[in-house]
């Protein structure tokens, strides 16, 4: 509405002509100047300018609605994409809301991509099974999208649908994956997506991850420049969500907070509060995109791991209290261990833990994560073969990674009694090399 032409607003002809002559053409031009600047620029009386501005404002102003009519609108059509995680859906009043930006933050390998894949499937499902029956655009900036994992999630969560002929193809056929490699490519594809959303039945947009694309490009530029180049995608995504009324889900990485930034989340008055400082030093992870970004998202879910368990925390939401849900990643995607959220108090809701000392992430591939769990003295394999320990997994002959696992088992038995940090690191390097070899071999 900000681009409405002043000439079409029914102002008196003499005044409209003056606006046109001074190149004040749209509502945006006129309203972004203070009244006195307009008086000076147009050479009109203050009263004339005021009445003209009042008229322009009235037309450029969005319509007024009562909250009751909004509620009635909501009741008429679906306005949430259910995540099928009951506790989380309850907390979010039904799921991921339409027309808003939802952000997933967490350390790598925690399950953000798994969550996104599941959401994509849910949105692709036919309406009779509770889906949105629409297309999905999946912006995969980290090359983590894995279609076989997608089908696996589908097969184990909705066996009745995916076993019927052709359904898997139909579902997967609705998910359009884009892999932009730079910020300029990303912005370009956003423009195209806007058109696509207008033309097709796009029901969900996922950007996994936003941080990779925004941070990756500007490594050498200053913070100010960075913030500047972020602004556009940020406000574009927000307005896209608003005008198309689809849910937009973005993921964000974490980075470690350096010591300078210990005060990052405190106001000036708290400068000398040392007890807080030590507390903050412990939880040294923070979302990779800063505070301005955090203000702009409507819902922020934090994925984290501590005390031997993984949690989804509802860190920012206009509808939910501060709660955390323990979860595990299974072959059917993420599932909650309990549907009653644990209440989280104080600043705890904003912190991101990844201090699961028992668990060491050994290697990460696009579809699988290998985890060493020291407390259980076992390796576990997340992804294609989800959450089973190595002994079980190795029995699956058909798995492409079985050679890999065999090797691993040998090493497991070698170091069974005395596995320490150095060996883990050494193993990690070895495994990365192995993985590389396997990938080369496959292609």
């Amino acid at each position, binding site marked *: 509405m900000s681009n409405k032409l002043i000439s079409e607003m029914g102002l008196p002809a003499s005044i409209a002509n003056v606006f046109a002559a001074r190149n004040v053409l749209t509502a945006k031009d006129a309203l972004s100047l*203070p009244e006195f600047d307009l008086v000076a620029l147009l050479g009109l009386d203050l009263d004339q300018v005021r009445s003209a501005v009042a008229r322009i404002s009235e037309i450029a102003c969005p319509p007024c609605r009562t909250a009751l009519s909004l509620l009635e609108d909501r009741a008429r059509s679906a306005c949430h994409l259910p995540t099928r995680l009951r506790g989380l859906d309850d907390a979010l009043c039904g799921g991921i809301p339409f027309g808003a930006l939802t952000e997933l933050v967490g350390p790598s390998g925690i399950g953000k991509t798994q969550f996104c894949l599941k959401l994509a499937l849910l949105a692709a499902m036919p309406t009779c099974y509770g889906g949105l029956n629409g297309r999905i655009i999946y912006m995969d900036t980290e090359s983590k999208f894995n279609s076989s994992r997608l089908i696996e999630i589908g097969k184990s969560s909705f066996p009745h649908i995916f076993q019927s002929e052709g359904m898997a193809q139909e579902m997967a056929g609705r998910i359009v994956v884009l892999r932009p490699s730079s910020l300029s490519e990303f912005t370009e594809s956003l423009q195209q997506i806007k058109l696509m959303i207008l033309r097709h039945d796009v029901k969900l947009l996922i950007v996994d991850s936003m941080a990779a694309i925004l941070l990756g490009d500007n490594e050498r530029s200053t913070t100010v420049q960075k913030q500047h180049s972020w602004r556009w995608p940020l406000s574009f995504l927000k307005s896209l969500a608003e005008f198309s009324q689809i849910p937009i889900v973005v993921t964000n990485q974490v980075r470690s907070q350096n010591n300078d930034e210990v005060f990052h989340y405190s106001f000036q008055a708290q400068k000398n509060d040392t007890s807080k400082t030590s507390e903050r030093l412990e939880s040294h992870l923070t979302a990779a995109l800063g505070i301005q970004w955090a*203000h702009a998202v409507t819902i922020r879910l934090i994925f984290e791991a501590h005390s031997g368990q993984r949690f989804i925390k509802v860190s920012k939401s206009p509808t939910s209290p501060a709660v955390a849900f323990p979860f595990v990643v299974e072959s059917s995607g993420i599932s909650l261990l309990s549907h009653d959220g644990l209440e989280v108090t104080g600043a705890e809701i904003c912190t991101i833990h990844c201090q699961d000392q028992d668990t060491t992430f050994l290697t990460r591939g696009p579809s699988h994560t290998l985890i060493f769990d020291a407390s259980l003295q076992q390796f576990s394999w997340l992804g294609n073969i989800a959450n089973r320990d190595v002994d079980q997994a190795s029995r699956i002959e058909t798995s492409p990674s079985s050679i890999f696992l065999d090797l691993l088992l040998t090493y497991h038995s070698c170091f069974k009694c005395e596995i320490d940090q150095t060996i883990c690191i050494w193993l990690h390097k070895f495994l990365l090399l192995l993985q590389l070899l396997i990938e080369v071999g496959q292609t």
Partner: protein
Amino acid sequence: MSETSRFRSTEGSHGALKGAQTAWDMLSEEQMQKHITTGCEELDAILGGGIHCKEVTEVGGVPGIGKTQLGIQLTVNVQIPVECGGLGGKAVYIDTEGSFMVERAHQIAEGCISDLLDNTAHRLKDFPACPERLQPNSFLSNIFYFRICSYTEQIATINYLEKFLEEQKDVKIIVVDSITFHFRQDFDDLALRTRVLSGMSLKLMSFAKKYSLAVVLLNQVTTKFVEGSFHLTLALGDTWSHACTNRIILQSV
């Protein structure tokens, strides 16, 4: 109430000076004035009874701290009927971020009503008309909602409110959630931004005075580099910090 006292003051000895008031008149007016409760007794006490009408209050805090919650709560609390000790007014909610969730407003209205029924049941007996009004939906129908998608629309809406308030005299609170967002995203000329913003805040202040209503502006936080370390501070700069009468910063401990 405030109308009569203003009327009296213009009749007085200083009547020649248009709009002038003695400090004594202002005091008695202030004592007569009802405040909008925030729903939290401690906060009300700090603010001197709640959010004041005729004043601009700014609320800031880190993302997810509860600024929007407070905003929605105020739009509900302003509607507490006069018989129950409230203002019985209506509310304007200007949403620039899309975070107003009507389901949540419904929940808050329900909570507010059940609180009222518990606490003031004895008083309500004398007002049989009340229970019909005490429905969540009637609360929601008194919240006027504007969804803003650019700073032009934000300026336009605030200009348009002048006309809107003329028609809707019962509006007792204007909540802007948040004042910052679009100005922070799209406005490049910072000097011009400051002037446009101060024009906007003057306008809001004049509404507050003219219609005896409360203006609540929600603001985002930003980082500021002071004396070698980063601090949090409210966005929009130092000039803006003069625009508001009260400033509340929400923080978790």
